[in-house]
């Protein structure tokens, strides 16, 4: 079995790195390998998309790298921090201080206003938000006139923009998105992806996004392809058609093998 190394060859600084990462569920006959010896780097200031058919392990990879899930072997580093040795409390702190999240289901607190939702991670940490940065982020996602609204008073696209602002507001080292456009119509989806790309291009943010949508993946700087728990390919400067073709190829290979 050939294991490919998808660490980029550039000397760019690495925001997150997985080395020989494996995750196995169950034991014996019922054993399921979700991730099989994955090694991958996510560079600072880069927008990476993780793609793959369902069951390929793309979400598991993201969860492990983001400190949401435990892994069986290998190592994961966020910046200089090795995740494998951290206790729950330290992991929580790491997520709070160094990682931003955007979920498919928005996941806003309905009792808080848009602004309160945006500053929630900093409130939890007990930090005062950087006012200037906050204004920049809010202006970028275009929510200035919606800050006092509650999530139920916002459209789906607006809710996800609040979630994007929440992820950006605390200036995390890396933002993880789990199908961030999965619940949105194509226009709202495009908006959100645009914000993510802008945050990378203009603000130097690092973003890693799991998606199964080639159009969404085309917004990224680099696409990593996963199949059956292993990285099978990658593509830099992707286009929607290019990604789709590559996916079709995997699909065909999967069927003939």
């Amino acid at each position, binding site marked *: 079995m050939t294991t490919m190394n998808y660490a980029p060859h550039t000397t760019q600084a690495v925001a997150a790195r997985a080395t020989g990462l494996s995750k196995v569920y169950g034991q014996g006959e019922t054993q399921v390998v979700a991730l099989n010896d994955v090694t991958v780097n996510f560079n600072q200031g880069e927008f990476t998309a993780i793609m793959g058919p369902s069951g390929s392990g793309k979400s598991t990879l993201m*969860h492990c790298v983001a400190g*949401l*899930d435990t892994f069986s072997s290998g190592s994961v580093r966020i910046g200089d921090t090795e995740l494998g040795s951290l206790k*729950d*409390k330290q992991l*929580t*702190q790491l*997520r*709070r*201080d160094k990682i*931003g*999240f955007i*979920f498919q*289901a928005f*996941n806003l*607190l*309905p*009792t*808080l206003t848009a602004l309160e939702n945006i500053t*929630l*991670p900093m*409130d*939890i*940490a*007990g930090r005062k938000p950087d006012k200037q940065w906050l204004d920049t982020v809010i202006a970028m996602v275009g929510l200035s006139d919606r800050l006092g609204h509650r999530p139920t008073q916002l459209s789906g696209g607006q809710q996800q923009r609040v979630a994007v602002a*929440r992820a950006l507001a605390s200036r995390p080292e890396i933002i993880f998105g*789990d199908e961030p456009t999965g619940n949105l119509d194509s226009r709202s989806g495009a908006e959100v992806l645009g914000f993510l790309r802008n945050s990378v291009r203009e603000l130097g943010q690092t973003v890693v996004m799991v998606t199964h949508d080639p159009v969404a993946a085309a917004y990224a700087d680099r696409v990593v392809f996963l199949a059956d728990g292993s990285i099978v390919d990658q593509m830099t400067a992707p286009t929607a058609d290019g990604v789709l073709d590559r996916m079709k190829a995997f699909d065909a290979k999967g069927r003939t093998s």
Partner: protein
Amino acid sequence: MFRTALRNVLAHKARLLMTVLAVTLGVAFVSGTLVFTDTLKKSLSGQSAKSYDGIAVSVTSYGQGRDEEGRPEGEPGISQQTLDKVRGLGGVDTVSGRVQGFAGVGDEGGKLIGSGWSNKGSNYAPVKDGKDPRYAFTTGAGPAKGDEIALDKATADAGGYAVGDKVRVATNGPVKEYSLAGVFTTEDGAVQAGGSLVLFDTKVAQELYLKPGFFQELSVSAKAGTSADRLLTEIKPLVDGEHTKAQTGAELAREQAKDIERELGGMSTMLLAFAGIALFVGVFLIYNTFTMLVTQRTKELALLRAVGANRGQVMRSVLAEALVVGVVSAVIGLVSGIGLAVGMRSLMGSFGAKLPAGDLVIAPGTIVAALVIGVLVTTLAAVLPAWRTGRIAPVAAMGSAHLPASAKSLVLRNILGSVISVLGIGVVLLGVSMGGDGRMVIGAGAFFMLIGMIVLLPLLSKPVIASVRPLLQKLFGVPGKLAAQNAVRNPRRTAVTAASLAIGLTLVTTLSVLGITMGKAVDRMSTDKLKADYKVSMSGGSGYLDKSVPETLAKTPGIKAVSPQIAGALRIGGEFASASGVTPGAIGQLLNIEVLSGSLDSLGKGEVAVAEKTATAQKLAVGSPLQVQYEDGEKGSLKVGAVYKDLEGLLSPYVIDEKVLNAHSDEPFISEVYVNVDGGSSKAAQQTVVDALGKNPAMTVATRQDMRDEMGGMINLALNIMYGLLGMALIISVLGVVNTLAMSVFERTQEIGMLRAIGLDRSRVKNMIRLEAVVISLFGAVLGIVIGVFLAWAVGTTVSKTIPDYALVVPFDRIGIFLLLAGVVGVLAAMWPARSAARLNMLTAIKTE
């Protein structure tokens, strides 16, 4: 449909757990009470029937009779001659006459054995064979001479007495020493229950308790072949005119059984009332659970409607679910109730009240009551949620699962709640204005007020809880803020949860405030109104002191002032009025009598001091003549010599020289003797008094502090019993808080997962849930306390007129403890939901849609 219901119950086992527990507890309380009282009833009646075994006819004396003029008439009991006449009847086998009264036995240290409950003395009445069939001697024999007694076995054992020993026996007079002739066992109920019994020679007993040659009761047994009824008709004419009642033994046993039933009925009614409160509180929990189950299944139920189930069918499926839960809980409750009854019996046994042994009585009525109550309470509480199910539109199957409650229904609810609350408060105030007769009105008003408040709670919850949010945020940061917001996210559910706590706290607070207020009033009375150093009375508070007591004490050196308080009666204007007989010169030094006009010295001249209220009511003033009739029927003309401020609880409305009363009565009823000593109260002085009384174990010499403690102790005991009984309702409301939080955590799984993902650690997630519970609990508690204080004020005003210097006392220390407990309840209730929230798997939580 029923099968669907059954499946649903099984599918939601965990979520129905609290409901089952709540109904089970309520039903257990009910069935436990019923089984316990039934068992007690049966064994007590069985015992009383046993003690009438072999008695064909019993003749009881009412004591001395009175003629139309109120003069005593006839003899104080049944004479020996009558007994002999009865004995002479053909069908009579044996006749025994009995007298009984107080007799206390001291142990070697001089302390009363079996104090407080039942210390009796009676006569040993041997019949033909020289034995008294009521008593079985384990050692020795019955008393044959005047200086001999017999003791029941438990008392003899407790005192370490053996046949031949000298035993000090106290009656209401001087202590005397007797020699123990025998130790016996008996079926007598009081003895079986742990009381002491001394048997004297008949002559001695008659002298002690009645009058030589007279009995209080005759027990007649019939010769074989003679019926009790025939004997009764023969005996009746013989005892006629002696102010007696003749009954067959069977009739007497029946009557006693009825008495027992009545007495236990009171107890069981009280216990059932508390069980009712517990069940009522449980209704809220059940309602919440079913509301939530139905909300969660909106889609599923709408689907049923979409595929053709009609409204009734959907509603019935929810009700059937409640029915299943009700039946299961009722059965478990019934079984636990029986266990509870067994426990109660042994608990009472451990307090020294020996209950007669007997089989557990599980009446069919108990089983039916337990099942019906369990099922009814559960189904009734589910009616409203079920009705809402009926209104789910089939189209909801397609849409979002969570339909927000319409704002309109809250508006209607608020208007309704306001109207009922205002009405309730109005009725309470009306009751207050009615004074002493308004208590029932206040009770009705209180009920409406509580209902109104419960209806209004969702409205109240928002501003009240919002007002504490800044504080919570400051103290606990984000978890505090979120907890306060979460607590009002579902105002109806929060309200229902808090309401169940509020009900319990209302009752607890009302009782506490009233109890403490009464206690303080009594306390003030004994501090301000009492100047005596000691009060001498019979132990256990029952019975009267011998007339020799005041005389003996007055002659003792070191004792400054002595006055008895004789519970006498005067007939004034055809009505009996209670009068206190006192020692004129001394009483002013012993009680703080505030003389409004005239002088207490007038008592020495044979004049009467009248309490202010009575004087006003009877239009009496100093110098008014008073036509009275004494206890012996003689008439007299007295004069009012003083009017004093009422001293309720210490003095009767008419105060008079003891000599005046004693001249017209053989045996004065001295309820207590007040004593002042030279140099004030001290250990030595108290000993002087005790010694002067002959170290009588049956008499208590209480200091002022003792008197205060005694009253305070009684009030505290009563309060503690109430707290204990309300405990069940509180436990169920705690279950309600657990239930609500578990639901909240379940509903907010996704949110909690997100919070964990973006950096809220486990301990702070726990804090958030805990604080939510504390907020809800305190909200209910504060509301309950406010209503409780208001109701206590209302009830207090109705009794204020009968208590001198009444002033409402709000026991802030206790209320502080209640609030603290409510907070602790919140923390405890949150334990399990908080743990499950902290342990949520983030990933699955986030993924849930």
